[in-house]
């Protein structure tokens, strides 16, 4: 089964992961994705009727703890890496449109 992933699909998934993409890149990725996904389709050969999906590999139980306040990184320290901040907040442009 050969499956092609066209440039439209590539641009769609690029937007899903918030990745800017040029037309030229979309074309290159489209060809590469088709051959990779084609290879992955070999999983269709495997009979997984009644096989549960793996969900964990280490500790099978939820790990709970008391919700206790502990000292954490100071706001000043945290903001050292923020590209843009103002009055102790991370600053970004408009999130919700106001036009």
């Amino acid at each position, binding site marked *: 089964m050969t499956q092609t992933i066209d440039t439209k699909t590539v641009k769609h998934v690029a937007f899903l992961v918030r*990745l800017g993409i040029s037309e030229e890149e979309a074309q290159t990725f489209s060809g590469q994705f088709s051959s990779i996904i084609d290879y992955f389709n070999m999983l269709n050969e495997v009979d997984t009727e009644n096989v549960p999906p793996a969900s964990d*590999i280490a500790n099978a139980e939820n790990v709970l703890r008391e919700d206790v306040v502990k000292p954490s990184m100071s706001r000043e320290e945290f903001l050292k890496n923020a590209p843009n901040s103002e009055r102790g907040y991370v600053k970004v442009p408009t999130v919700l449109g106001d036009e």
Partner: protein
Amino acid sequence: MQLHNLTIREAHELLTTKKISSVELTQAMLDRIHDVDKKVKSYVTVTDDLALEQAKKADERIAKGENVTPLTGIPFSMKDCISTRDVRTTCSSKILENYVPQYNATVTNKLADSGAVLVGKTNMDEFGMGSSCENSALFPTHNPWDLDRVPGGSSGGAAASMSASLCTFSIGEDTGGSVRMPAGFTNVTGIKPTYGRVSRYGLIALASSFDCIGPMTRDAYDCATVLEHIAGHDPLDSTTYNSPVPNYTANINKPVKGMKLGIPKEYFVAGMEAGVESAMQEAIRTYEKLGMEIHEVSLPHTKYGLPVYYLLLFAEASANLARMDGTRFGLSVSDGAKDVIDIYLKTRHEGFGDEVKRRIMLGAYALSAGYYDAYYLKAQKVRTLLRRDFETAFSNVDILLAPTCPTTAFKLGEKTSDPLEMYLSDIYVVATNPAGVPALALPAGFSNNMPVGMQLIGKHLDEATLFQVAHAYQQVTDWHKQQPTL
């Protein structure tokens, strides 16, 4: 005596008998890095000042005889995906090129507490995505055995720094072979511990259900020593095991006579380089002479390990890398951005390399409506079958032996044009991570003058047996003592 060539226990002996100081040892290592690493390019950052400061403190500890561990005063390097407070941590990506963490990974803290001396951070494929270290956005690393060849990946810098004697031990990270495959390419010993044995807190996540931090060393004894110091439960990583960490070196000398060694037939198929195949046969004969029982076993779903691993990795990575968005840390491209989404699009377009882009897009594809059942869920089901393969095999044998790669190190540029071909070089190392079992890589000889690696695969939490069986081999062979000429 050459200080850079010492094993951890040799260096420890010299340090504690005051024949050398940690400052001398550390300075010798730094001098060698500044001399030799121009050719190898294994380090992204060399921490001269911090290292000498830590070495001085280690010498004080040794002088007072207080709190001296086998790692006190020993210089090590660490893969650049493990957070180090006040030391740049790049994941070899443009998006984190100038990122300086405000906190340490648990492993970083544990090593600091043991008195080990950080000499630098090592190069890697960007975010661990690659098998040759050529996907580093900073520069490629070269194989110390042949500078025209790759060191393997993604812990290529860690492996090369160990192989070229630019540290006394190194800390790598293995998501789908990233410790073992480069260890095999560069004649180094390295372990991917059981998933959950070593805390992932502060490790910049690639695939959270696969990622395992593990040491890379000159031999199995050193590897056991380092793992003892970094393993254990961590309240900050709820996937870590609560069970106590064994003293791995205590029983390392126990004879392997009578133990059962399984040879998975699916790993010995057409396509393996002749010299790799003969090295494996020779290793099996060596174990036979040591009195192990050799059994052929079957891991029937082996060939599906690669698609299972990559599909799940893409999915997990696409979620994990969402945090690289140009707003709270790292690169931020905001020129002309009209809204916050624009910052994401521009920052990630500029900050990520092609392999990262491919993987996060394919991950979103495998998780998206209409494809989730066919890809993500299907892969999780086959993952269950992969785990069952190992469980069945381990009901009959104690340990498995397989090559780390069908070939020795390939040339730089040889596989960069075809992403799928690069993925296929991981064929022997990926199946263990979805299953969570531990595996240790060690040198097994040479093919056309390039190192051949083999791996021992063990039961969950049975690292002790891996060290014991690897150590037995290293007592009767000297492949691991061979060093490249640089």
